[in-house]
């Protein structure tokens, strides 16, 4: 225990690490929670698409002379509403997501070319910042804002949690029982959009996907019970962020996002391998029912 405390004392005495630690933990809680529902609803691609849309929004705002943050939030929330409405009663089709997001990303490339030719920053350095972010480069105000937004997203998710779970697992039965499935679709994707918009600016689209998809995939492999999977997903996301941050502090040549994702991926592979041994050791069981 003392060895563990000693290993953390060094990094935690540094300002930049404390801020990364605080923002990363808040991000992990929100992403683990939202990600668990995204996996359950088969909408991981939507979150991925929203993070790319944030890129277009940020560049559009920069090209038009606004603060990037305005564009990021505006674009992400608008597209979240659009995808939820287009998705309609059925769950969002991956094809529609892919078609819409590819075009929006193409628009982002246009704004990038306008922005770089007018500002002469060149080399797409701004694009790199938006796509990959840097969790070690945030100030205390950003860390605090991230924590507040994460808290708000978690509050919304907990508020709609039960009906959302029902609507995610069986939308038809939920609708028949009077659950407002369409409203929940919009609320959920907007909450996911707000989270994506903030996290993309803080940790980058790369780490965002690592926090949304990998812990939730691991958790849903560990247990079939939905609420346990949600809890496990949050716990795994937080543990991954802590381990990854420490690792990239110990090895400065490893970028923090890459470190965190590598930790999560290795953990997922281990769980996956363990689950397969269990499954195949006892003969091949019946696989789940096919979705209608």
């Amino acid at each position, binding site marked *: 225990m003392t060895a563990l405390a000693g290993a953390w004392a060094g990094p935690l005495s540094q300002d930049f690490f404390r801020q990364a630690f605080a923002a990363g933990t808040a991000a992990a809680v929100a992403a683990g929670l939202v990600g668990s529902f995204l996996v359950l609803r088969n909408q991981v691609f939507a979150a*991925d698409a929203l993070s790319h849309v944030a890129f277009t929004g940020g560049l559009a705002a920069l090209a038009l002379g606004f603060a990037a943050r305005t564009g990021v939030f505006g674009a992400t929330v608008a597209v979240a509403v659009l995808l939820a409405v287009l998705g309609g009663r059925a769950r969002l089709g991956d*094809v529609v997501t*892919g078609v819409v997001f590819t*075009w929006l*990303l193409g628009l982002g490339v246009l704004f990038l*070319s306008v922005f770089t030719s007018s500002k002469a920053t060149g080399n797409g350095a701004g694009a790199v910042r938006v796509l990959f972010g840097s969790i070690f480069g945030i100030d205390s105000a950003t860390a605090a804002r991230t924590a507040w937004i994460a808290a708000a997203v978690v509050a919304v998710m907990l508020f709609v949690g039960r009906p959302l779970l029902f609507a995610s697992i069986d939308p038809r039965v939920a609708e028949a029982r009077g659950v407002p499935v369409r409203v929940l679709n919009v609320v959920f994707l907007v909450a996911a959009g707000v989270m994506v918009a903030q996290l993309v600016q803080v940790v980058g689209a*790369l780490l965002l996907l690592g926090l949304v998809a990998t812990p939730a995939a691991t958790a849903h492999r560990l247990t079939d019970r939905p609420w346990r999977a949600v809890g496990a997903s949050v716990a795994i996301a937080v543990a991954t962020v802590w381990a990854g941050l420490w690792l990239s502090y110990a090895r400065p040549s490893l*970028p923090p996002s890459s470190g965190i994702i590598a930790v999560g991926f290795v953990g997922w592979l281990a769980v996956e391998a363990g689950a397969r041994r269990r499954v195949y050791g006892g003969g091949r069981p019946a696989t789940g029912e096919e*979705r209608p």
Partner: protein
Amino acid sequence: MPPIDGWPAVLAAGPRLTWDLHRDLHQLLQYPFMRHAFVAGAVAAVMCGAIGWFAVLRGETYAAHTLAVVAFPGASGAVFLGLAPLVGYFAFAVAGAGLIAWLSPPGSGQRERHSATVGAVQAMALALGFWFVSLYRGFLSSLSGFLFGSFLAVTRGDVIVLAVTAAAALGVLAVLGRPLFFASVDARVAEAAGVPVRAVSLVYLVLLGCAVAEASQFTGVLLVLALLVVPAATASALTARPAAGVALSVAFALVTVWAGLAAAYFTDRPVGFWVTSVGFGGYVLARGSAAVRTGWGRRVVVA
């Protein structure tokens, strides 16, 4: 088109579109890199149109996007090691296809976990790519081209590699076509009828990886869906018949690539923007006309 106020001066100095079609074509094809781009673009479009149609049928859009992103560490790793980027694209896209097929849980009831698997693989690939980029700072300057496409880099050798790969992949697809269609439409019945469903989907993902590696030469790794999925979705909105769908999809992909290249050449705006915009415009028109034909509100074709 006339130069618009406020646009960079390079536009005025560059090629101009006139009403004389012959002169336009001459301008367009006067440089070898443009001729290479047009030939290679046609090769990639034929391959992506055919393979992409199955991607839409099977709901593998996200896998296509992910395989493209997987190609990114391949390209950056190849540059880091001093190899041709094309080698890295193919190696990583095919390896990524194998990884996704292997990690996807067996059984057709596991779509949710399939999406999560794909996302997790993509995150890891991006992490790896970013690590390579940070190891080799000089690569950063060409990063934008890798992510969003550029057609200036296509050499004669690349054209040959692309054509040979496309021919091989289309040959495999021709052999695989019927069982693949069967397995995509109803995996359970196909399995009961003796189709090796898992092997078929593995081979298909490898083909998808090859198509993605070709498309990303033009569109960049982030915009491959413009060639793989958008033309196929447009075709699927217009017809549900397989042969007509594949043919339309190939035709739309060809139009998208050529129109995108020509527009990018004449306007000095990124090729990625034009390719996606042409494709999206076609998709909106197709969905609109399908909605008009079938009557508002009644959905017959889902794409």
